[in-house]
């Protein structure tokens, strides 16, 4: 439909006055960035459109991550899919399994004759989105990783240093509460932070088959002694308010920004919100190390979303899309995006550029995420995770952990049930993609 319209417009344009109007090829981009980040997405598209005249990127906000993905799936079933859609990291397995629906980004760049060098990208960022053979399936866009945010004023008042280990965290939490704070520690996105990243950070596998990278017949194994001990310990911290559970996702953000809790573990991408809302001096530091599990941290894994090209459009349109991908990952755009939002830059060049511009000197701690991600070469345990039905699995983990925080279950019970329910979902997914 789009093509015939363009052809018609072309015919009309040439028929009327030659060269008066050039038809632009429209490329639809569905995304999940609301609010200030939505405006930034619009700016990226507008700048790209202004930089050339052959293609026009049309960004459309489709709701949150889940809604955007569902919208794209429904559109594909109706044959009305956009060219490009932003999908969060846990949807990766679902997208990847949909072989006829997606157009792997690396292949698309090659087909369009667009220069593309994978080594420009940060390994910890792109490893999450590669096939076991190393082909890049989708283009990283907004990637973040969990860090520990701390209230620098409160820590100083309580007379404790910024914690580096879980023992430090407990000491600091006690000191904060003793010094009159409402609570010591809280966190959000608990499956991502406390299970997925806790495992990667200590180089433990979360599921078999290289965390699912090597096959859909993977099984969860995160109900091990180490994770159990850590979670039991946190649950015991609820007593005396050393730890306070504040809800799923980012719901616990006000606990930190209001000055109730002195430490908060969640995405580095909350940087923008912190600048806006926190009335005190805050900082971010690496996730704490559990010294009973490992001597040194491995590397953390990313969250956030990538851009997937969907199949079923004209080659000419993909050519424009490839050009846009190049523009999007250019150092200038990435450095700007990184500095504005707190998402990590996806290329080494953008990181270097931010350094040169003095961003990290002016805003100490803003390179924590990137340092965490590139601390070591990712191992099969820390490269990322790839589990089917993972949106539901995360809900299962949320539910079971909530039962733990509420005191209804022990960590062992909660994790065993989570693994059992999670494995059932994995089997269901394995079957649906056969």
């Amino acid at each position, binding site marked *: 439909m789009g093509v015939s319209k363009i052809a018609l417009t072309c015919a009309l344009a040439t028929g009327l006055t030659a060269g008066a109007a050039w038809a632009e090829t429209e490329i639809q981009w569905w995304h999940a960035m609301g609010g200030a980040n939505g405006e930034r997405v619009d700016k990226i598209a507008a700048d790209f459109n202004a930089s050339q005249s052959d293609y026009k990127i049309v960004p459309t906000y489709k709701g949150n991550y889940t809604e955007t993905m569902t919208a794209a799936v429904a559109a594909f079933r109706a044959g009305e899919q956009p060219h490009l859609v932003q999908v969060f990291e846990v949807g990766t397995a679902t997208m990847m399994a949909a072989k006829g629906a997606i157009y792997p980004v690396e292949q698309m760049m090659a087909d369009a004759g667009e220069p593309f060098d994978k080594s420009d990208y940060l390994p910890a960022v792109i490893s999450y989105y590669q096939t076991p053979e190393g082909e890049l399936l989708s283009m990283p866009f907004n990637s973040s990783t969990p860090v520990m945010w701390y209230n620098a004023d409160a820590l100083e008042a309580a007379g404790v240093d910024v914690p580096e280990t879980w023992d430090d965290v407990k000491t600091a939490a006690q000191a904060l509460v003793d010094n009159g704070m409402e609570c010591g520690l809280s966190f959000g996105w608990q499956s991502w932070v406390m299970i997925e990243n806790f495992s990667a950070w200590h180089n433990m596998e979360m599921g078999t088959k290289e965390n699912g990278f090597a096959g859909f017949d993977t099984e969860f194994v995160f109900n091990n002694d180490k994770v159990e001990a850590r979670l039991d310990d946190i649950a015991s911290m609820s007593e005396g308010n050393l730890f306070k559970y504040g809800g799923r996702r980012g719901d616990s953000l006000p606990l930190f920004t209001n000055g109730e809790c002195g430490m908060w573990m969640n995405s580095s991408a909350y940087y923008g919100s912190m600048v806006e809302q926190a009335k005190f001096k805050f900082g971010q530091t690496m996730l704490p190390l559990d010294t009973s599990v490992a001597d040194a941290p491995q590397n953390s894994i990313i969250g956030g979303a990538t851009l997937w090209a969907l199949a079923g459009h004209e080659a000419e349109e993909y050519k424009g899309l490839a050009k846009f991908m190049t523009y999007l990952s250019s150092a200038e755009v990435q450095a700007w995006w990184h500095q504005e939002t707190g998402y990590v830059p996806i290329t080494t060049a953008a990181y270097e550029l931010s350094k040169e511009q003095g961003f990290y000197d002016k805003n100490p701690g803003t390179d924590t995420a990137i340092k965490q991600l590139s601390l070591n070469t990712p191992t099969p345990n820390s490269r990322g995770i790839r589990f089917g039905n993972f949106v539901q699995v995360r809900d299962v983990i949320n539910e079971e952990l*909530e039962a733990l925080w509420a005191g209804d279950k022990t960590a062992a019970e909660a994790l065993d049930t989570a693994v059992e329910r999670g494995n059932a979902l994995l089997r269901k997914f394995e079957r649906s993609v056969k």
Partner: protein
Amino acid sequence: MLKRVHFPSSLLPYLLVAPQIAITLVFFIWPASQAVYQSFLIEDAFGLSTEFVWFENFELLFEDDIYLATFGRTIFFSAAVAILSMSMALILAGFADRVVRGATAYRTLLIWPYAVAPVLAGALWVFMFNPTLGIFPYILDFVGVDWNHYLNGNQAMALVVFASAWKQIAYNFLFYLAAMQSIPRSVIEAAAIDGAGPIRRFKDFIFPLVSPTTFFLLVINAVYAFFETFGIIHAVTQGGPANSTTILVYKVFNDGFVGLDLGGSAAQSVILMVLVIAMTVVQFRFVERRVQY
């Protein structure tokens, strides 16, 4: 023999019912049959690989303890919402019926919440009860209640029940008030002359006389609690914590639209459909007989 009167057959009656039939076909029969078909499939999200499995999705559901627990929860939730909102509406209507001056203003104000969209109603309650920022947790703290519906399932359930019931009070109020005003004044006056006080009059005369309305509202409220509370739950708790506010319709949404498990979700909506049909039949067959008209 009976004499039959023959009218010339005409196209008109068919034409007159045609729009209704068309709407039913397009908006009910067709989607419902699609759901039934989908419930027999195990399919990936994009519809690229499909397997016909007969009743396996249903078998999986009935082996799932969490799904079975959702039934009990839904019944509790619906009963709580219906009882709370209907009794509040009945009391308010009882008072509003007696108001002499400014009656219109009272009524308008009481009907207002009905105009609020479910999601907005949910958002209002979310703000009021936010454990960190809300006004109610702040007040409750003085009486020693530690309010955190992100963690406490019972509090979360109470919150969605209150929010859902509050939203429905206006609707129930409207019907109760209309029913009360259609009771002949002479009946009430006769009772008053015989010495019945306001409470006695309400108990022995007004309440039995509005029982057809009570029955009607029971059906409406049950359907409301089963389906329309989705927006409130989505805005307030999203079914959490630990599934404690996940009712049947929310699970259909969550498994289908968040989890992209279309077969399982369709099977659930088929069960829900059967359940509602059964419920309506039971209500009309058995409950209606006990109502005095």
